[in-house]
């Protein structure tokens, strides 16, 4: 099957091509799902792009799209589902919801925005099988999941016992393989575990009440593990003290704690709060952006807050328990899970007239605009925690259009306006920078060499947008989206469902750990390790994963 996309302006920062800037259009050729060098052979189908902007399919490296906590959110927030019923022309009849859309709606809405790959950033090992089953039902998207590690009692015991790094590496490797994960996520390092022992807060150097371990130790040990195992994505860190005013110091200390090793700080917005001003809540975005700029080993995604109703879902039960009092509507679910992790689901409405919410919004945008290197910052709302991913086009316009941004700012809570630098920041993102944030950079930080670009050999995941000065309108509906070379979206509407794949990382590790894992699962967990393990054949309805083989320093 050969396709030809004719006369598009190609925006491919990974390969240094910017047809938008040069004004030159060219053809892109696809053969059997991959991009190939242009030929003059007859194509099975041709699409005349008429100068439209052609980019690689969008990649979201942090969006909660599957797993037990999302289903708990669906269960709890039936209001969301009822308010957003199936869309007209929804040919499979199973889509709905906005803050927590169904698997089908997730795949369709993302595709309509030009996204083709999305990573679930918080898969709990004991729920891995369920998360993979759910991901298999998401159409149109390639997926992958980060395994939540660091609060599990097995790991905490290793740390407390002073186990060597090799033991840790073997355990991490085993867990990655057993759960079919792509990367390691740490959520509130050690804090979730401490909450099970009734600790209500946990700072970077605070000791776990039972194990005596510190978040710093958890973090540095796991950073070393993923480095030595050769996992492509660095530790994906949801730090300590999420949402707590004054967590800026923790965040700065956390960046320093990495000591130059690669570390990804996720939803940084929720970790950039100072305690200045009479409301004891202020923006520390400038301080934090400065340190991020100075540390090329650090990458971040923002977790932008967008106003409106959403539901927050996190493994960080400690923080979510703290926030349950401000749930709106007033209900929430919490769960301690399997000596492994936990979860907390708290519905929330971000209000533009609220000082705190308005300032959160401004802090997120400050981070976007003050972190200088577009290759190290990623466009996220931490869907659905800061807001649903369907708000991305609006967010893009906020980044690209200063006038629009300042007009929005002027409508917010007055006190919050006085507490942010945002109005003075003149930076506007270019289209190329947006393409970096949403395609090229995520592919690079995830180690996906055949994604996020349009060079020969790349997977033919392609989004075509008609240029529009109103960037929100431009990015709200893709003119065409191709998934593996198949047309799935035309004029902003899904026209076909494609089955995606699931990316997993497969490191080498010392398999002698298996005996110990068997013993642990038998005695403590009450489940056989072999039943904990998810087999390749259990992914994607038997199709199995797309495996990224890791070349570690240990073997």
């Amino acid at each position, binding site marked *: 099957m050969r396709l030809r996309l004719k006369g598009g302006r190609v925006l491919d920062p990974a390969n240094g091509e910017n047809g938008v800037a040069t004004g030159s259009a060219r053809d892109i050729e696809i053969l059997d799902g991959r991009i190939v060098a242009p030929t003059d052979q007859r194509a099975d189908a041709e699409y005349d792009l008429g100068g439209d902007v052609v980019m690689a399919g969008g990649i979201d490296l942090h969006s909660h799209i*599957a797993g037990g906590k999302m289903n708990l959110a669906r269960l709890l927030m039936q209001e969301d589902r009822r308010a957003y019923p199936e869309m007209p022309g929804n040919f499979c009849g*199973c889509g*709905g919801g906005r803050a927590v859309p169904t698997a089908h709606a997730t795949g369709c809405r993302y595709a309509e925005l030009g996204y083709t790959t999305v990573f679930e950033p918080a898969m709990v090992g004991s729920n891995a099988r369920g998360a993979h089953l759910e991901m298999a039902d998401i159409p149109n998207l390639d997926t992958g999941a980060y395994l939540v590690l660091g609060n599990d009692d097995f790991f905490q015991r290793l740390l407390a016992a002073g186990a060597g790094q090799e033991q840790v590496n073997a355990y991490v490797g085993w867990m990655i393989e057993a759960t079919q994960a792509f990367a390691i996520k740490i959520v509130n390092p050690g804090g979730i575990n401490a909450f099970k*022992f009734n600790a209500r807060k946990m700072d970077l150097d605070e000791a776990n009440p039972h194990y005596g371990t510190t978040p710093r130790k958890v973090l540095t040990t796991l950073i070393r593990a993923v480095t030595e195992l050769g996992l492509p994505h660095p530790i994906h860190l949801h730090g300590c003290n999420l949402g707590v005013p004054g967590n800026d110091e923790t965040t700065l200390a956390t960046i320093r704690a990495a000591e130059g090793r690669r570390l990804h700080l996720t939803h940084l917005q929720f970790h950039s709060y100072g305690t200045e001003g009479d409301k004891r809540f202020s923006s520390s975005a400038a301080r934090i952006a400065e340190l991020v700029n100075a540390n090329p080993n650090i990458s971040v995604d923002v977790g932008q807050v967008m106003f409106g109703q959403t539901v927050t879902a996190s493994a960080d039960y400690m923080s979510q328990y703290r926030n349950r009092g401000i749930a709106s509507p007033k209900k929430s679910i919490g769960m301690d899970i399997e*000596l492994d992790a936990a979860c907390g689901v708290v519905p929330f409405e971000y209000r533009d007239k609220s000082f705190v919410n308005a300032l959160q919004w401004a802090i997120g945008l400050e981070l976007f605009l003050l972190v200088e290197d577009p290759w190290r910052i990623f466009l996220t709302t931490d869907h659905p925690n800061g807001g649903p991913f369907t708000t991305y086009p609006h967010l893009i316009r906020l980044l690209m259009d200063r006038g629009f941004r300042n007009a929005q700012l002027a409508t917010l809570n007055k006190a919050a306006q006085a507490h942010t630098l945002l109005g003075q920041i003149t930076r506007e993102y270019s289209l190329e920078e947006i393409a970096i944030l949403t395609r090229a950079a995520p592919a690079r930080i995830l180690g996906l060499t055949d994604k996020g670009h349009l060079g020969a050999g790349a997977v033919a995941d392609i989004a075509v947008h008609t240029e529009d000065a109103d960037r929100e309108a431009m990015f709200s509906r893709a003119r065409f989206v191709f998934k593996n070379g198949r047309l799935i979206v035309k004029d902003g509407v899904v026209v076909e469902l494609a089955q995606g794949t699931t990316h997993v990382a497969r490191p080498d590790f010392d398999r002698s750990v298996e005996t110990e894992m068997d013993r642990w699962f038998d005695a403590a967990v009450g489940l056989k390790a072999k039943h904990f393990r998810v087999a390749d054949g259990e992914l994607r309805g038997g199709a199995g994963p797309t495996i990224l083989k890791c070349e570690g320093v240990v073997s």
Partner: protein
Amino acid sequence: MAEASTQTIHDVACGFCGLGCDDLTVEVEGRTVRARGDVCPEAARLLKRLDVADRPASVAGAPASFDEAAEAAQRILSEARAPLIGGLGADMAGAGALVDLAVRFGGVLDHYASEGLFRNYAAVQRTGWLASTLAEVRNRCDLLLVVGDDPSATWGRLFERFFPADPLFAGTPRKVVFIGGAPGEKAKGQLARADVLHIATTDLVAVLEALTGFTAGRIPPGASFGGVAVEALVALADGLRNAHYAVVTWNAAALADGDLVAERATALVDALNVTTRAGVFPLGGRDNIIGANQLMLWRLGYPLRTAVRGQVSVHDGSLYATDAALADADVLVWVSAFRPEPPPEFAGRIIALAHPETVFEKEPDVLIPVGTPGVDHAGTVFRMDSIVSLPLGALRVATLPSVAEAVRRIAEG
């Protein structure tokens, strides 16, 4: 044909009651299957297979080929006005295929054991709750409150699994308080190392309310609640407050006031978590009901008891409950792969995807005997906590289609 030799399979996972035991030992000899050693009576009964010929598919009582039966089923569904896809005793693949079927033909989806689930939803959907899972209970729970009747009649190994010999954190002895029914012999045996207390009452709701009051520091007026003296309640409330990790468990399906029990247990655990840690552990989960419900949530956005009507789904906990929906349905697709559960009385047409040993009061219009997940074919089922799922393996060569295969064939026609 070679003589069948006995094969012993260890670490067999069991998908029947929802507790998720996965350490069973099973002997297989050709088509014969039987559990060996420590196994609960329910698993022993449901795993047992004799070397008998499978019951054939049938249409209107007359034997038919699988294809003929599938075609007949499709004809019936095509003409159906209001199908009820009930029973829903299927593994994840089967449940997924059944949702596809509902999307295609319209109809109500419910599981035959959903009553308890929806009683719990009175609490979890309205206020949410703070819950726990099996491994946490095993290792942390130092005070377990069992509300209602002794659940070991339904979950034969519950207390064995809750209370391993050597928990990581909970000190000994661990305390178990039965509120309502007294523990039976089996429970007492499994709880030999624990401190067991029984508080009899006929009003569980009042007792839980009073406990919540005392726990929260209120002094409700009265000398006894639900027939339990204030002194006993105060002592128990103190015990709960002083526990490191208290867990409240109940089986809503067996409690007429299960919705209120769930709500009050939730309130009690909420009150406890202000100063210490605690969680609810609702019992349930038979025949992969939790898995089917999970699938419904991610596929349709609604739990069980949802109707698909012209490709738009809508949920209603009462109208689309099996009993109510039966009164409005003209076709019942009855699915029970885990056990020979007969369909409920129904005047309309019945398409049964049933365990081959099912005894029907009235021959279904179409019968397709299906294999059992974890016996005849592999499959996935969820445990009652909705977090952990188990891979079930095949114990013998399948001669019957799985639910997923049968449903796909019906859809293809």
